């Protein structure tokens, strides 16, 4: 892990692969959180589930 990272260069953007993975991963995680079904809890006060 101590060997140099690969850097990607687009125009003025220069980013390391690990950083790109982190940012890309965050966007994917946010998108998944938006669409993934959320387990509905137990019954509410009226007994509806």
């Amino acid at each position: 892990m101590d060997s140099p990272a690969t850097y990607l260069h687009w125009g003025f953007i220069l980013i390391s692969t690990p950083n790109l993975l982190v940012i890309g991963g965050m966007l994917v995680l946010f998108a998944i959180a938006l669409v993934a079904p959320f387990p509905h809890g137990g019954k509410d006060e009226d007994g509806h589930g």
Partner: protein
Amino acid sequence: MKSMQTQEEYYSGVRMVRYDLVKELVLAVAGVGILVLGLSVVLSSPDVPPATIATWALSDPVDFQTTATNELAGTTTSAAYGNPYNTNGPGQSWGPIAPQKWFGTRIPIDSANTFVIQPLQRAATGNTDLLAQLDVWQKASPDQQGKWTAAYTKALTTATVKDGQVTVADGDYGPLPVMMTNLLGLAQTGGLDGLLQVNGRFYQTDYTPSLVFMGDGAYLPGLAAQANLTGNQWGMMNETGRYPGQTWLWLYTMWYQVPPFNSPTGFLGISSANADLGIIILMTLLTVALALVPFIPVLRDIPRWIPIHRLVWRAYYSPKVRS
């Protein structure tokens, strides 16, 4: 005021369902723990050993001597820095905004004395040749000193290195060859690290002189450039090796890569010469704007226009649709 409305009033008519916050927290702690422990076991963390003045003097003795000579000549970054180290430079300013000057010389550094003369004086015990040459230097006029440093700096560009020793072509350099050879020898043994860090005391925790001196050279910044850590390589975001860095600093470091902050001529008085000040002002304004989003038109309305919330609250907007 809406904030004084009780929760019972606020949620009146809203269906409440069971939700276990404490269990959620415990699961979160466990989940993050598994993630973090796993990454620690598999990937460890970065720890590249620090550079020292000794490694600098051994790896690149010509750069070391060039830097030391430039300290005497007053041409290094630190020598001409300005406050808080000295008053030899104006510092960064944007029109009347010049905070670098406002608080005085609170961390005094006299580059020539701190990095060259005083360490040599301390190390000169019993070394009559060095003491004599230091005396020649101290007694010479600034004009004469300038001639020597200019000549020696030029000679160093064609110097040869053998067994860590620097040899220059013959010329009139006054006391500089003796001074620089001694300083180089002192540095290579680690003595200069010690003298600059300890500076006559016993305990200390302030590394200002050593770090400023190393920053004046090309060796440490050169290592940093290889690791993509410098300012115009988005360096603020990066880490050594293949570890993720400080991705949250992306916007802060981005400005250093674009005009006017990376341009020598700049725009509206902001250029690469005062980029640090310009970017700090800009990021302060943007951070305040982020804090005040609830009160800023357009910024506070974007969530309505880009309806990501319709996914979050789909149970509310389409109540027949059950996941």
